[in-house]
């Protein structure tokens, strides 16, 4: 009897993925490769498209990287980026966990959680420009909401208080930017965590309840370990987003206040389009940032990897080996 040839549907999958692959190659892969290449060239100047690899013009291949890494402005931007991210991420994850615990607690049965979730997520759908303008108004000088409040309170106590220029000092600028980032993203983080908790079988929480765990114990000993993968996702995406921070600090303060709000991405933008058109240096800075993100993400993935899965695979291999030996 002749075997009927099975229809291979795999080719249709490849066919349908062609538009994505083309778009990815054109708009992601090519720019990334081009950026890597430009980092080793002398490309600079408005409208200039001609470039040469640095050794051909008598320079070290890594000269652009050296220039970036030794630049005081880049170092400051890098430091700022970390400070702003840490001051944003710690309260962000803290509040997100707190609200997650509250909204998912089956014992307290909080009413109207849907409304709260929408309200808390709302800042994430507001544009960065709107938020930047809003906070500029709030922390305006000499007239601004906070200055007005402080002056009003001071008046009550019979004290005359001069308006404080929040945007002229380094730390207030950093803290305000970090707060705006926190305000914009804590709802988003909370939704991710809630999704993770909802995925846990309710019977696990009931088992914990019967075992005698109180709410705090249940949250820290059962809930958090069960959403470890979601936590990893939140941490990595937040880290990447944080190191790529651009819109809020750019729109809120730019390079004012002695570059208090300057981030690495702003530095890259300023190198390329800030007047000097140093495309090569901007590309080198981009590559440095890319490498830092890859290394840090890899470290996080390694630290928070599913060790049980690895152990399980090892165990299964051993069992398989033993079974084969037995045969």
């Amino acid at each position, binding site marked *: 009897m002749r075997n009927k040839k099975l229809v291979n549907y795999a080719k249709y999958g490849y066919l349908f993925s062609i538009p994505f692959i083309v778009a990815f190659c054109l708009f992601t892969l090519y720019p990334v490769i081009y950026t890597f290449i430009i980092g080793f060239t002398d490309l600079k100047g408005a409208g200039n498209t001609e470039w040469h690899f640095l050794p051909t013009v008598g320079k070290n291949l890594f000269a652009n990287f050296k220039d970036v890494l030794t630049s005081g402005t880049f170092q400051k931007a890098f430091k700022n980026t970390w400070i702003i991210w840490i001051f944003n991420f710690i309260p962000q994850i803290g509040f997100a966990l707190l609200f997650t615990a509250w909204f998912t607690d089956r014992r307290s049965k909080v009413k109207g959680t849907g409304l709260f979730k929408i309200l808390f997520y709302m800042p994430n759908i507001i544009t960065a420009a709107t938020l930047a303008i809003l906070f500029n108004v709030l922390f305006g000088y000499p007239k601004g909401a906070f200055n007005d409040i402080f002056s009003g309170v001071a008046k009550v106590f019979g004290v005359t208080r001069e308006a404080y220029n929040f945007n002229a000092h380094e730390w207030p600028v950093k803290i305000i930017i970090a707060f705006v980032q926190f305000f914009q993203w804590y709802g988003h983080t909370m939704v991710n965590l809630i999704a993770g908790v909802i995925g846990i079988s309710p*019977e*696990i929480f*009931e088992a914990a309840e019967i*075992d005698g765990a109180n709410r705090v114990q249940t949250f820290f000993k059962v809930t958090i370990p*069960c959403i470890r993968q979601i936590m990893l996702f939140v941490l990595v995406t937040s880290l990447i987003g944080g190191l790529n921070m651009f819109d809020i600090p750019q729109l809120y303060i730019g390079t004012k206040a002695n570059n208090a709000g300057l981030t690495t991405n702003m530095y890259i933008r300023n190198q390329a389009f800030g007047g000097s058109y140093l495309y090569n240096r901007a590309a080198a800075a981009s590559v440095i940032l890319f490498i830092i993100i890859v290394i840090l993400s890899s470290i996080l993935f390694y630290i928070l990897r599913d060790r049980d899965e690895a152990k399980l695979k090892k165990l299964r291999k051993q069992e398989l080996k033993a079974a084969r030996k037995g045969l």
Partner: protein
Amino acid sequence: MASLSFQHVYKKYEGGVVAVSDFNLDVADKEFVILVGPSGCGKSTTLRMLAGLEDISEGEIYIDDRCVNDVLPKDRDIAMVFQNYALYPHMSVRDNMAFALKLRKMPKDEINRRVQEAAKILEIEHLLDRKPKALSGGQRQRVALGRAIVRDPKVFLMDEPLSNLDAKLRVQMRVEITKLHHRLKTTFVYVTHDQTEAMTMGTRIVVMKDGFIQQVDSPTELYDNPVNTFVAGFIGMPPMNFINAVINVEGSDVFVSFENVTIKLPERYAVEEVMERDGQEVIFGVRPEAITDDITYVTDHPESAFTADVDVVEMLGAETYLYVTVNGSLPLTCRVDPTTSQSAVGQVVDLAVDSNRIHLFDKDTEQSIIS
């Protein structure tokens, strides 16, 4: 070890849905009580109310004469085994079993002793350092049992603990749990929708339907003397045959007639409850094993014999099921002895009912006529 008492317990949800109605039950110390019934009958809700995982709308639940309506689950001295095991995925088997004890700040030595002892009973000592992910369904089930055992609770609650296991493992674990009950000498309350589990494991069975208790009895009593058609049909596999029949009384003799078949009932049916229904329709119940094709029996009992067409024969090894049709319209199931049965598909066979093992139910109320 504890006794339990449910007194007029109700569970009403918002929107008017009543999951459990007027549930009354006393469970003696060391009893193995099974709550059985179809999906949505309220058995799991009842167990969860006992566990403290659901609020009680009305009534009282007592554990050892202590009303536990407002007592937290952790303070009820109960342990529960869930349908999907509910093991903590990030903890090892040892930690899963020790979790409740650690929360109670028990000394480490005592925790280790209890975990080892439970692991030994359940033969999972070699699995103590594994995570639940690395266990089979049966092993997970044992760990879930172990987690309950180490607590040394007054009452064991089990919510369909064998439902996720394959048929073979289910039989094995059924035996294990029964042994465990004998060994621990503790009160067990076990929920299942599987009547085989109920019949084989329980010392007493509570049959539920639509939130109401239908009957509470020993497995034998439930099987032999069901109080209504629901219990009669729910307990037993294959289920009881129900036939619309008419009672005929001739002198002191009582007959039931259906589809041109007349069966004479034994003397014990010549009682007032039956006699007064002369000419009335009743539901005639007969279990498959009470119908036989054994030629000797059929010949010796012409007063309960009839013929039927054989539609299907299912040979199961130790027994054979005959699916027959009486008079071309009434389907019946018979469980016969494969060593003596000669019946084959397409044949017309002579059958006889063991009239000592029949049941009569009221046509309207579906309650048993003879209590």
